[in-house]
């Protein structure tokens, strides 16, 4: 696996205050990575260090296979937080100038500018002065300038900063097209919803380091908790369910599984189906990234690979990647079994016998 960004043992203090401490981050090529953290946690500082704008006190930063010093980086696009840019020139002029600063000339420069204006949906507004641009248009212009030199890596600083929900929704497809172009992206943001919508993997920055890391696919694989609402719960069934483990809680007419795993969920459903307990509904309480983010920041989250397949402890990149892939495959297999059970459950008519588990598993 090729790493687009490899940061290790990074330390940086600003005005005597430590901001980044033992910061480590690995972003594989062609991945969209979201670095999530509160204001002034050092997210932008990480980007500025990668760009060579800020020198680290200590640590190693490798970008696209090259050690970062104070030199400029080619093939790296940077979208700064919402900026007024240069208000008295037009968007097209701005891109032409920036393209020229990147060494582009003549017809190639013109074509590249036209292409990027099209790509960010600014083609109709390219000849308007920048001071007339809305916040959304400024963000689009920021993306266009970053794409000019055909980057392999894009660094996005608060790409939705200052945008309302409608504007963010309009910008998201433009950003998602970066993924389809195979461009590695590192986005820093305070918005878990954005990270969940745009990124493949998310790291949460707390206390100057990546305190937890999740794959978005893992988040979507299995819910953290599930509540099954029942028409009745005989004491015998309640006792059987309790033997499945402390994660299964029985309360009156509902059973809650927390932490939820596909295997445990399947066991509980089998028990209920075999006992012909009427199931009224099943609420998958998929905990959004936002809640995990809150818990990590309040030091209320301890990643455990065994109990939480979404958490991928920080390891060496190759191990982390393969471990995450294994966890994802296992979770998918288990989830598929769970889905089959649910399908059976839904198709089952009252009074009909439950299917044979053996044939069910083949479905």
């Amino acid at each position, binding site marked *: 696996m090729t790493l687009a960004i490899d940061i290790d043992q990074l330390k940086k203090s*600003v005005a005597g205050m430590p901001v980044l401490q033992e910061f480590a981050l690995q972003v594989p090529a062609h991945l969209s990575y979201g670095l999530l953290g509160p204001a002034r946690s050092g997210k932008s500082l990480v980007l500025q260090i990668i760009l060579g704008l800020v020198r680290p006190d200590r640590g190693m930063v490798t970008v696209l296979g090259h050690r970062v010093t104070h030199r400029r980086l080619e093939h790296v696009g940077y979208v700064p*937080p919402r900026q007024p840019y240069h208000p008295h020139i037009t968007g097209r002029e701005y891109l032409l100038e*920036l393209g*020229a*600063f990147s060494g582009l000339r003549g017809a190639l420069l013109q074509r590249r500018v036209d292409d990027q204006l099209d790509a960010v949906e600014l083609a109709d507004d390219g000849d308007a002065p920048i001071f007339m641009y809305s916040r959304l248009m400024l963000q689009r212009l920021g993306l266009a300038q970053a794409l000019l030199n055909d980057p392999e890596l894009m660094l996005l600083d608060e790409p939705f900063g*200052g945008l309302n929900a409608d504007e963010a929704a309009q910008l998201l497809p433009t950003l998602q097209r970066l993924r389809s172009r195979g461009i590695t992206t590192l986005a820093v943001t305070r918005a878990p919803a954005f990270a969940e919508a745009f990124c493949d993997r998310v790291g949460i920055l707390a206390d100057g380091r990546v305190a937890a890391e999740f794959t978005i696919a893992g988040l979507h694989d299995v819910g953290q908790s599930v509540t099954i609402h029942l028409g009745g719960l005989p004491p015998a069934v309640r006792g059987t369910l309790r033997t499945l483990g402390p994660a299964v809680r029985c309360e009156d007419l509902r059973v809650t599984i927390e932490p939820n795993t596909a295997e445990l969920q399947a066991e509980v459903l089998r028990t209920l189906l075999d006992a012909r307990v009427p199931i009224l509904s099943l609420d998958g309480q998929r905990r959004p990234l936002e809640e995990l983010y809150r818990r990590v920041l309040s030091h209320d989250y301890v990643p455990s690979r065994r109990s939480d397949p979404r958490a991928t402890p920080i390891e060496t990149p190759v191990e982390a990647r393969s471990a995450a892939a294994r966890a994802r495959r296992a979770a998918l297999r288990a989830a598929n079994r769970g889905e089959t059970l649910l399908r059976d459950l839904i198709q089952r008519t009252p009074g009909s016998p439950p299917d044979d588990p053996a044939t069910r598993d083949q479905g």
Partner: protein
Amino acid sequence: MQPAALFTQFTRFTLMEYLRSGRVLIELSATVAMFLAAIRGRALDAEGFFANAALFSLVAALYTGSTIIGLGDRPHGYLLVIRPLGRTGYLVGLYSAILIVVVVCYALLCLLTAIAAPVEGMGVRGWLAGSVPLLLNVALLSALLSLLAPFVLPPAWRLAVLALVALAFSSSLLGGATLQSLPTAAVLVLEALRTVSGAPLMPAFAGYALSVSRDYSGVAPLIPLAQLTLTTGMLAIAVYSFNRRDLAFDAP
């Protein structure tokens, strides 16, 4: 693309933005006002013209320099720094833009004077003799402003440089009775500091005097050289400091 071409292009870019922002109207208006108020109808000789023009050019450099440095001190300017232009090209480009605006203003003042209020007895040679040290002082002040830019020197160093400049100019404030009223040790320390801090500014003072007198006898021809050396040195320190400075900024 060659670094020189990149910084030339950046200078052009900065000037284009400066012109379109309309700020240049202030300099142009001030130039015309200066001509109307201090030159036209006063029948100035060459000394009088250069005395006025030198002061005007320095004030114009102070204003233009502060404004253009302000233009450069914006996070989106750093989008250029991370491109092949680099930090050196960025700072030298801003510096060149300051110089060009002030030189154009000075040229306009000279043109207005030549057309509407010719200075008696001053030919092209005399004009050049006064203009060279005058413009070198503009270059020197612009280099000092570049050095004092917030993104170049950290605050503590900027204060230290400003304090040294203030000390060098303090002879009128801390002279005579004021100085004598201080303890002897303090007087000695102040005079030593003033001598040390004033030394780097000597070419500037001498340049102003040379511009007004246009007397190139003796060692006077060395004055423009000293001005040029000091300007280059100051600019080199500014570039060195800028290349080592952290350019951190927050999201708005």
